[in-house]
């Protein structure tokens, strides 16, 4: 085993992040070069979902606890940025329930993004403080109940959210590249978190909660940290969603979006960052391909066309099939491996594989 230079060591360490960043960069550059506005919007929308899925992954992937109610933090982020960036004149008439300083505020988009995501994180933090002591099943259901509660409140809080009507007029500064940069930031946050001591402690509790406790991991605190960070990242996704579409409806943040984002994470493989990213790419690509097929493709002189609505049925069946044949997801919990040279030597790791090999040989005898 030749000695590794410090640069190679760092490269290897951050390769799982760098490789994913590279894949996204290639997609974005190719789509940008194609010049198709429609494709660019599809990719931007996919990248926003990616941010949300990576946010859900931060809690769900590292803790192993199903988070069923994360979309509410997207909604909180999206509405918060609307409150801070809409024209004061517009807010005075449409959202009279807002406090005075918010009505007058018209913040810089970046400041507004950070504040809105912080609000989402704060709400996630308060909920996490309350619920993270109970058992995993109860936690998942409580996150869902909290989402349902938030949804019902926003849906009826006419003076602040316009209730079931749409808020329009958010500054639309978000395009594919803006989302791409934020996706990089968010993936870096997720990766640095997962290799930090906090992430490792939480992952230990995912594998074996009792053993992790015995090693001094405070599972409660670690879950609260992860859920808060997750709320922050999902909140960023919500903010970008708002400024990408320029229009907000409470109804968009409900079961449909919960389903599609969770499906992306689980189909990709919920236990690794690569799983989260690959899941988003695969499902976004599949959806787009089927959508194109619905429009029809000419092969020779015959027009091949799927009947309208078949797209969703195939997509659902496809997801079900992946669940059945690859229950751990496409990536099976692994990150993208370092392509140059042998796997990173871990002290004791190699001898242990030898031991198990020997053990297997003995039982074989």
């Amino acid at each position, binding site marked *: 085993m030749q000695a590794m230079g410090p640069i190679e060591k760092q490269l290897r360490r951050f390769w799982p992040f760098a490789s994913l960043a590279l894949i996204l960069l290639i997609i974005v550059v190719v789509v940008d070069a194609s010049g198709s506005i429609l494709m660019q919007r599809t990719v931007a929308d996919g990248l926003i979902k990616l941010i949300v899925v990576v946010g859900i992954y931060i809690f*769900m992937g590292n803790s192993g606890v*199903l988070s*069923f109610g994360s979309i509410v933090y997207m909604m909180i982020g999206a509405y918060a940025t609307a409150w801070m960036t809409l024209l004061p004149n517009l807010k005075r008439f449409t959202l009279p329930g807002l406090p005075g300083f918010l009505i007058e505020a018209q913040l810089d988009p970046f400041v507004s993004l950070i504040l809105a995501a912080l609000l989402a994180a704060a709400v996630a933090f308060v*909920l996490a403080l*309350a*619920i993270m*002591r*109970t*058992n995993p*099943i*109860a*936690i*998942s*259901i*409580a996150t869902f*109940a*909290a989402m*349902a*509660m938030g949804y*019902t*409140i926003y*849906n*009826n809080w006419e003076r602040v959210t316009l209730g079931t009507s749409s808020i329009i007029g958010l500054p639309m500064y978000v395009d594919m590249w803006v989302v791409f940069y934020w996706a990089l930031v968010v993936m870096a946050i997720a990766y640095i978190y997962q290799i930090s001591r906090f992430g490792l402690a939480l992952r230990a509790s995912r594998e074996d909660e009792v053993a992790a406790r015995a090693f001094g991991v405070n599972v409660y605190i670690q879950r609260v940290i992860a859920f808060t960070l997750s709320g922050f990242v999902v909140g960023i996704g919500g903010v970008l969603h708002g400024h990408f579409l320029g229009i907000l409806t409470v109804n968009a943040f409900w*079961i449909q979006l919960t*389903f599609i984002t*969770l*499906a992306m994470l*689980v*189909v990709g493989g*919920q236990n690794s960052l690569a799983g989260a990213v690959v899941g988003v790419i695969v499902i976004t690509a599949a959806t787009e391909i089927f959508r194109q097929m619905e429009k029809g493709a000419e092969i020779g002189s015959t027009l091949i066309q799927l*009947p*309208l*609505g*078949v797209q*969703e*049925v195939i*997509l*659902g*069946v496809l*997801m*079900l099939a992946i*669940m*059945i044949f690859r*229950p751990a997801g496409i990536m099976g919990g692994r990150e993208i491996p370092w392509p140059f040279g042998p796997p990173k030597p871990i002290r004791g790791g190699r001898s242990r594989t030898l031991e198990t090999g020997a053990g297997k040989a003995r039982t074989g005898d």
Partner: protein
Amino acid sequence: MTFVLQIAIDAISLGSMYSLTALGIGLIFGILRLINFAHGDFITIGAYALIVPAAAVVATPFIGTWPAFFLIPAIISIVIVIALLTEFIAFRPLRGANMASLLIASFAVSYVFQHIIILIYTGRPKAVNVGIELAQHIEFVGLRVPAIQLVAIGAAITLLGGLALFLKRTAYGVQMRAAAEDFETARLLGVRANTVIALAFAISGLLAAVVSLIFITQTGVLSFRMSLNLVIIAFISTVIGGMGSLFGAAAGGFLVGVMSTALQTVLPDDYKLTRDAFVFGFVILVLIFRPQGLIVTKAVRERV
């Protein structure tokens, strides 16, 4: 006094619907740890089966015109078959999968069902008149009550009673309760997993069919997402009652029905629409302070 009685009947009939749905979901959740979102689609399919499969804007009743004596068994059989097929195709290959995979699978099934409905019937809501005579009000000890509310209460009492007898008195019933409380141990003691699970899906199909008939008679409108809200509330009810306890699921349904009606009456007009938010908040409190549910069965207590 009559006012209170009127509200009590509202509460109990709403509770009956929640309770029947909660039982269908609780049965599956207790055994498989599967939050079956497709249960709502069982209900939807039961209602859509009443009309001729067509994209036409105006729905033509098909099974819906049959006399009740044939109509009810027909709808029940259709939904049971759908439930069993779902189990066989989608959930059986996923035995032993974790909760997230199961949830996604049930979402996927629900997604497929909803879009098949859109494919056949289109996504537009459709009006359908079934059991118009039941929508009429009848005089009842000085109250004017829609007959369908009494039917709902009657159906709930009959089905809950029948199910209780089945669960207490028959061998399959005992096996099913054992499976709902501790599936692994039950299997070790010789309970056949596939039989019990198939039976659970059949019963949840039966419950869904009855709920769909009551629901469609009350609302008269078909839409492909008509039962989403009902399923969410019912799922929440099973949690309030105590996960894994079938009695708890039924009781939780009634409790949530009573709670919703009470909130609807007590809350000022501006807040009436947010009554569900209070129910959801209540669930979070239950999960924090009594994660085993409000109604603790003897079995759960002994297991600790």
